């Protein structure tokens, strides 16, 4: 960070200024003039929190995608299908057993198993053939999407969170001050906050595992030079299968999360595939911190866009992508 500040003093200044303005907007009680100009603070804060929690969901989906791509150069355009599959599995588990928490491990294991099948049967046969992988996984996603439509129908499914997580939670953000001087605090759905915290934990754990453990060291070595690593006796294919299973499992978990705060329906697979594409393009391929940054940016852009300029919300997301590509084609945190 210090090196970045030394190399780009102007950018650092701009980023610091933007962060300060954002912090002031979040914590300060807004003066009347500002409320007249851009609407009430409650709307702003809600959009902000929705954006951040949506970013958490995008991060869960995109981090699996970026992990698989970054480590194995495997292009898995069936990632959205894995997400949707996780959502359906989560719905059935939560609905039939009544335990919401049980949906997560089951979705992780089942979707992870699908990931293993994909890696063993598809990707291992076409290592290094980008285009063929893309085409085959597009084919797989078409087939899987139709099979899921066949199996689960076109209905919307919603996974209900348990009692202790439903309902709003008081936060310490002041949205307004009443005429008698009493501050009004913002309320926010508990489940979203918990899920966001969980995705932060997952992200940090992933970063630590990659950078501080032996397995992580092997994975990073495999990215740099696969042949040399296997020559030292490491069982590289096993590592790859493991990473693929983990990335796919994350997509499955994300499906359960998505089913809890939004709905699960046909077509969501493509939406989340696109979201993860945009997130990793913005953040930088193969970088976990990049996926986190990209997911936050895109989540915030989508929510603020839909509140403040509803017609052009998509265009805002797209503009971010275009700007990043134009000035930094490798992504914000990408190498090279």
């Amino acid at each position: 960070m210090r090196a970045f500040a030394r190399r780009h003093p102007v950018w650092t200044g701009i980023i610091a200024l933007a962060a300060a303005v954002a912090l002031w907007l979040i914590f300060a009680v807004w003066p009347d003039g500002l409320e007249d100009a851009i609407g009430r603070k409650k709307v702003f804060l809600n959009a902000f929190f929705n954006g951040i929690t949506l970013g958490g969901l995008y991060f869960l989906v995109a981090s699996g995608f970026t992990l698989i791509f970054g480590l194995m150069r495997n292009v898995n355009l069936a990632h959205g299908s894995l997400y949707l599959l996780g959502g359906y599995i989560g719905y059935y588990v939560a609905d039939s057993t009544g335990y919401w928490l049980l949906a997560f491990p089951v979705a992780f294991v089942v979707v992870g198993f699908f990931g293993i099948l994909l890696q063993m049967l598809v990707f291992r046969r076409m290592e290094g053939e980008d285009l063929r992988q893309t085409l085959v996984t597009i084919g797989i996603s078409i087939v899987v999407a139709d099979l899921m439509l066949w199996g689960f129908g076109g209905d919307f499914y919603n996974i209900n969170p348990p009692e202790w997580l439903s309902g709003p939670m008081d936060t310490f953000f002041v949205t307004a001050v009443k005429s008698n001087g009493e501050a009004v605090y913002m309320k926010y759905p508990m489940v979203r906050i918990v899920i966001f915290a969980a995705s932060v934990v997952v992200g940090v754990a992933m970063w630590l595992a990659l950078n501080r453990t032996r397995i992580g060291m092997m994975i990073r070595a495999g990215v740099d030079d696969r042949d040399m690593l296997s020559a030292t006796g490491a069982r590289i294919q096993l590592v790859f299968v493991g990473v693929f299973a983990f990335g796919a499992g994350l997509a499955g978990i994300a499906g359960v999360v998505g089913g809890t705060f939004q709905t699960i329906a046909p077509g969501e697979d493509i939406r989340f595939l696109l979201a993860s594409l945009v997130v990793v393009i913005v953040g930088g391929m193969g970088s976990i911190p990049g996926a986190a940054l990209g997911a936050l940016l895109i989540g915030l852009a989508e929510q603020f866009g839909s509140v403040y300029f509803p017609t052009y919300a998509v265009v805002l997301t797209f503009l971010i992508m275009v700007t990043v590509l134009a000035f930094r084609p490798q992504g914000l945190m990408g190498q090279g």
Partner: protein
Amino acid sequence: MVAIDRPAPREDSRMWIEKIPAAYWALVVILLVIPSFASDFVMFQIFGWTFILGLIALSLMFLGGYGGMVSLAQMTFAGFAGYMVAILGASAIDTISQGWPWWVVIPLALILTVIFATAVGWLAVRTEGIYTIMITLAIAAAFFYFTRQNYDVFNGFQGFNSVLPPRLFGVDWRGPEAFYYLTLFWAAAGYFAVLYVARAPFGLALQGVRDNPRRMAALGYSVTAHRVAAYSFAALLAGIGGILLTWQSAQISPGTVAIQPAIDILVIAVVGGLRHPIGPFIGAFLYVLLKTFAVDVLVALGLGGERFNLLIGLGFLVIVFFSPDGILGLWEKLRASRNRDPLTGRERH
């Protein structure tokens, strides 16, 4: 370098018209006389649609086969041209449609499409390989959502209906025979244009850029300019296809430029084969046949007509899994194996 030792090819003294193989003549004659016996449905729906989808897929084949850039935004360019014709020309939504005459609308729509595609291409060529696919997919999705949400210009979810071709020379160009010849003409024009461009200096340089961008850059060719120009040329083909598509269904809506059609174009081009411009038309013909008759086949198998995507997806999967070059690749493999002597494994003479 290798070519130096090779003896110069014998001069072919025949006229150019004599060098065309007999199979081509047969194909031309068949295509020209089809309207004399085919039904209106076959002409308008099957062949018209084949030529249109083939033309749009041809633009992808040009980019992918000669430029090495697989773009999923070709349907977006086609849809953009269709939208421009609907917005600038006449449609049932007369609050938005300008109703300008066709000789302004069509060239203007194509020019705008080319400009749009050039901008997209300039953005997309900053990336390579798989990234190109991703960014063009993202652009296609953004355009789809934009047209669906924007009511001022693109009329949102409904889109435009009653977008009809002009009554030129007193012919109703949506009549089955007229539309058949119209689409056949443009498909053939696109096919020969791609063949010509591929052998022109620009096409050769583009293929050089595909094979080795660094060497081409060292030779003094602008890699970026060639790639962006390829997008512009491909968008012209896609734009013509898009206008014809809009006329065929007489409407344009966000559904035309959704993700599924964009992927369908990729499926068509890849299944047909990206090596030769005839590939997309073969792929389109198969796709249209499947789309038209698969329901009957599925019902006969007792599966229900809505499993169409399963059939398409499985077919696509099998083809890309076993033959990355599509049906053209399968054909070449078959020919090579028939020419090989099974005992010695050498080519037969």
